[in-house]
């Protein structure tokens, strides 16, 4: 039998603004990504200094997830994230550190972030989620892939909720849209609704 699932809540992080369910919770006129993250951290996260060791993609995903999960009781939440640039933002930094023999400084602390799923690892650590993870890379936001995957995990009882969405950082541009799929919620878990909220 098919279950019906709903979108319980959603968040956006873009253009210096963080919003939850369409309502602004943080806003700055700052345009530099790192400064936006620093200011948002002070207002919204406060107590996770490891945040500053993360790469840009992890910071963005961590922040967008934090505003949705900070009061969430359920721990069996699958993470199903996606983007276009994978970890290319950090890959470029790492490649720069090994580009020639004279300037050869490969750093394990940078190298570890050259994978997009590290962002889900950071979210899992903070919120103690020993749950399903999958990272998809697509040229544009593709709700169908995410919703199909989420439905399967929820219907097969591998997860009770799913945190899905888009988290992309590339050459100073950034955009995150995450949403929690659950048995109860305000919006129907359909491609059309996901696209509308995006």
């Amino acid at each position, binding site marked *: 039998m098919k279950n019906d699932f709903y979108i319980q809540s959603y968040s956006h992080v873009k253009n210096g603004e963080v919003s939850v369910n369409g309502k602004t919770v943080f806003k700055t006129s700052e345009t530099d990504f790192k400064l936006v993250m620093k200011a948002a951290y002070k207002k919204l996260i406060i107590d996770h200094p490891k945040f500053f060791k993360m790469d840009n993609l992890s910071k963005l995903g961590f922040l967008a997830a934090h505003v949705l999960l900070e009061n969430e009781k359920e721990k069996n939440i699958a993470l199903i994230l996606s983007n276009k640039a994978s970890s290319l933002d950090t890959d470029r930094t790492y*490649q720069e550190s090994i580009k020639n023999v004279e300037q050869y400084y490969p750093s394990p602390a940078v*190298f570890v972030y050259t994978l997009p799923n590290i962002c*889900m690892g950071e979210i899992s650590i903070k919120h103690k989620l020993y749950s399903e993870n*999958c990272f998809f890379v697509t*040229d544009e936001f593709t709700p169908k892939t995410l919703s199909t995957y989420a439905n399967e995990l929820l219907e097969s009882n*591998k997860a009770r909720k799913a945190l899905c969405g888009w988290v992309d950082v590339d050459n100073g541009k950034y955009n995150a849209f995450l949403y929690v799929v659950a048995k109860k919620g305000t919006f129907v878990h359909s491609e059309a609704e996901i696209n509308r909220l995006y």
Partner: protein
Amino acid sequence: MSKIYLSHNNIVSSFGFNSISAIEGIRNQVSGLSLYEDKKILGTPFCSSRIHQEKLQEHYSALSPNEEHTRLEQMMLVSLSDCLKKANIKLTEKTGLIISTTKGNIDVLENESKYPESRAYLPVLGEKIRQFLGFGNKPIIISNACVSGILAIAAAKRFIKQGLYDDVFIVAGDLVTPFILSGFNAFQALSTEPCRPYCKTRTGINIGEVASSVLVTNDPSKTTDESVIVLGEGSCNDANHISGPSRTGEGLLRSVEAAIKQSELQSGDIDYISAHGTATMYNDEMESIAFERANLSNTPLNSLKGYFGHTLGASGLLETIIGMHSLHQNTLFASLGFQELGVSRPLNIIKETTSKNINTFLKTASGFGGSNTAVVFQKAQV
């Protein structure tokens, strides 16, 4: 619920350009690993298994390409086109394409690369593969560290179960590059000799190069002699550390438990484990803890890294294909390089290649970001 099968398959590796060449090498306990001195890749000698460049060119040229493809694209095209040819099925709107890779065309970031930086975007790589082979649907790319290859199989099953596709072709591949080798070297994880998973005197990991492909289908008439049923799967996070494996093996344990539960089996029903076994100190130790907690300490187990090294985004699929052939040949392949147990918990490492009736195997992988995946397979016997 109809069953979901793994069917036609291909392995492009240092052993050759099909699965059989790799299986033959393993059966004869030949390692594909050797010492390379290639300063363009790493300033010091490194142990690896790489695909023969000229032979790759020959196989690629035989496909009559109408544009130039990167080395990784060539590897993937050669592998997947062979798989497609063997499967000989019409590509429809119900045929999916999944690509598994950790770093894709990362070598285009190098100064000397003749390709534009845009080629480093994984969707660009995906589109090249889709276009050349004539898939109608956009590829679904999975980049989930070292579990990508096995997670791709789990994902294919999940998409088929939801009715999105009837057939999914998966192609998986990653390159041996300065990027990857310098990174693992910076972690002081690389071994200059062939790796020895789970061995007391293991000295670290080797990175190897492979492309592999498989057809995942819900149609029993499309299966092959070595086909297996995908029974159950799980992919759980350690929630512990982004680069270090969990000390309790929590994520791997949960993945294995989820996979076995969905399979409606008990741990005692698993005949063979194709484990991750990278031969780093921490990974192998973590696995021994997780397998003990899952009551799998006595189950015959190998790591195939001694034959290929760690082939990153390809490894999970590569090792699953070898598992299929292992079941079909009723043969447990030796865990090459192993001498004496060097982990704190018991493991039943396969020391010699032996004949045994085996029906069911468990494939596992673990990677950076706290990722783990486990999938249970059973002989299709159709």
